[in-house]
């Protein structure tokens, strides 16, 4: 039996009261077309077979569920396991979604793709998928993020993508989404917009969650195989919320499994100092969907801060908003400093350099492990590797590379 919590969204894209489509009329027809095309693809065994083949032979799935023995000893509590999305081709979970959407782009006969990126991981994953299928690729990226993520910018260009710097607003992920939407307004007949997170108008939040759910499905089966039972606790970081949605969704109906989403606590709880949308935001509209938003009393989106470009976003996916209000998922925040410490602990004890986004989940997992007994199992989504972050981390630690 399917519980109502996992049986969302409805045909109009509602997760409870959240989601829907708040976009200009010019985009509505394309969204209806995309919804139909995606439903058809889901029913088509050849689409799933092609996707599975690419995930196995191109992305390198399934990736391991790894028992972190030394980190577990260090914490002295529950057993910590990592779902190794960092071992995917491109080094992050984003490719699970871009491969799926690139296949859809081919089915729709569109020849051009646009994407937005914050940390650059989604931009790289889009560039990779487009190179693989021979599709033109334009990536919108805030100038501030281009500065923070030079390596990814170089990689995108190597694979033939055009990176367009965005100079409006805060010059980060939110502004990159705005610019991509504007491009799409005039190119929608020939172009597909590969949104990189579980945000935006219906069907994007559902579609991205579905493509990312391979993370949670594998982790669930691997945990059962390795430990003989389900995990007690699953933890993932939340910016827009794609790795966490993919990780949590297959566990939603497992009532015994505690789910925790970790947001960017930045420098502290004052407005403008963090990006903890679910902890401090209010209901509202951003980028085409209804959900929690960091905004002022007039509904103007607020500037946000995080050490991590991938979590530096003032909105969050509508399904996370739904999970928060239903109480199914707990949301908490980890500060910049705690994430930096998690980053270093992980490197020293496990020989794994994590993405600074994933370091938020690691830092919370360390706390959770200390508060739990040795019989408990904690599964953490290690959503990406940290090569892209070493320059910024070195700068913050006052070291030279």
């Amino acid at each position, binding site marked *: 039996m399917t519980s109502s919590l996992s049986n969302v969204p409805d045909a109009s894209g509602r997760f409870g009261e959240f989601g829907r489509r*708040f976009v200009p009329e010019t985009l509505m*027809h394309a969204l209806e077309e995309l919804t139909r095309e995606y439903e058809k693809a889901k029913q088509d065994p050849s689409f799933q077979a092609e996707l599975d083949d690419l995930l196995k032979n191109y992305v390198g799935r399934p990736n391991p569920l790894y028992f972190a023995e030394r980190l577990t000893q260090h914490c002295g509590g529950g057993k910590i396991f990592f779902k190794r999305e960092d071992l995917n081709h491109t080094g992050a979970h984003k490719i699970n979604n871009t491969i799926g959407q690139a296949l859809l782009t081919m089915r729709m006969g569109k020849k051009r793709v646009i994407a937005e990126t914050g940390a650059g991981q989604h931009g790289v994953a889009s560039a990779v998928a487009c190179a693989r299928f021979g599709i033109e690729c334009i990536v919108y990226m805030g100038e501030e993020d281009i500065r923070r993520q030079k390596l990814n910018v170089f990689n995108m260009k190597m694979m033939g993508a055009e990176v367009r710097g965005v100079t409006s607003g805060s010059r980060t992920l939110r502004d990159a989404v705005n610019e991509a939407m504007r491009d799409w307004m005039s190119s*929608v007949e020939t172009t597909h917009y590969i949104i990189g997170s579980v945000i935006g108008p219906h069907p994007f939040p559902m579609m991205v969650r579905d493509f990312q759910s391979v993370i949670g499905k594998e982790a669930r089966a691997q945990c059962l195989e390795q430990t003989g039972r389900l995990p007690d606790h699953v933890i993932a970081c939340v910016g827009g919320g794609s790795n966490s949605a993919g990780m949590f969704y297959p566990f939603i109906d497992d009532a015994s499994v505690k789910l925790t989403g970790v947001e960017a606590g930045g420098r502290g709880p004052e407005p403008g100092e963090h990006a903890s949308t679910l902890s401090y935001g209010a209901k509202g509209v951003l980028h085409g969907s209804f959900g929690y938003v960091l905004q002022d009393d007039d509904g103007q989106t607020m500037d946000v801060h995080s050490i991590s470009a991938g979590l530096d976003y003032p909105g969050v996916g509508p399904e996370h908003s739904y999970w928060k209000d239903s109480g199914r998922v707990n949301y908490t925040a980890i500060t910049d400093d705690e994430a930096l410490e998690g980053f270093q602990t992980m490197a020293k004890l496990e020989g794994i350099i994590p993405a600074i986004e994933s370091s938020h989940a690691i830092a919370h997992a360390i706390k959770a492990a200390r508060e739990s007994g040795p019989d408990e199992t904690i599964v953490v989504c290690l959503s990406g590797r940290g090569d892209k972050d070493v320059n910024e981390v070195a700068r913050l630690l006052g070291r030279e590379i």
Partner: protein
Amino acid sequence: MTTSISEKFAQVKSENRMAFMPFITAGDPDLETTVAVLKELAAQGVDLIEIGFPYSDPIADGPVIQESYTRALNNKFHVRELFESLNELSADKSVSLPPLVAMVSYAIIFRYGADRFLQEAAGAGFSGLIVPDLPGDEASEFADQVKASELDLVQLVSPLTPEERTKRIVQSASGFIYCISVAGTTGVRDDLPPELTAHLESLRQLTDLPLAVGFGISNPEHVNTLRGKADGFIIGSAIVKQFAAFSDASQKREDIIERIGEYAGKMAAATRG
């Protein structure tokens, strides 16, 4: 007092011309200027005025209006203060304003509180609303609230809107239909697309509401192209780009307002052919 949108379109039609609706951003660069420009536009005989509420993430707008919104927000624009300024202006018996139409994101309406927003907007003299991120499908509940406040809810139709959608959209619309001339964002363009004529003709079959064309219009030649096909037109970016001059210390405020007035007067004259 302001007249209603439908009365205005009926009057314009009886004069055998098109309605001209300039767009300005509220609070660019401050509300005092907004009020001064509103008076100037009224004096130039424009038929309606569209007032844009600055929004931090305007995805339907091109760079000119985005920058205008940013200037207003940097200068701490607040919705409540706009309503207060308009209340004061409508108390000024020496000024006769044409119908005012609010262009406002649903993000702002929702956060402000839909009931409170509609009540205060009506009180401040608005006759209708355009909510660019609330497409017909999402609008039915809100359309009822708007109607209860005795305001019009103007709906947008894009060249990419299929006929089936258009039929549903015109059902919940009132005041006029905002016909987007091109698939894209707001901004000045050299020519109007040739498909526009056919689009307007097909729309005319589906609704008796006035058809007003927006996006890309900036000169009397554009207006001539629309004559006999549309009931009105909207000019945004060509006016709003002149507001950048207010932050130029070497220019006098009165001169800039006079230039905006001259341009509006020229376009108002163009409605008569």
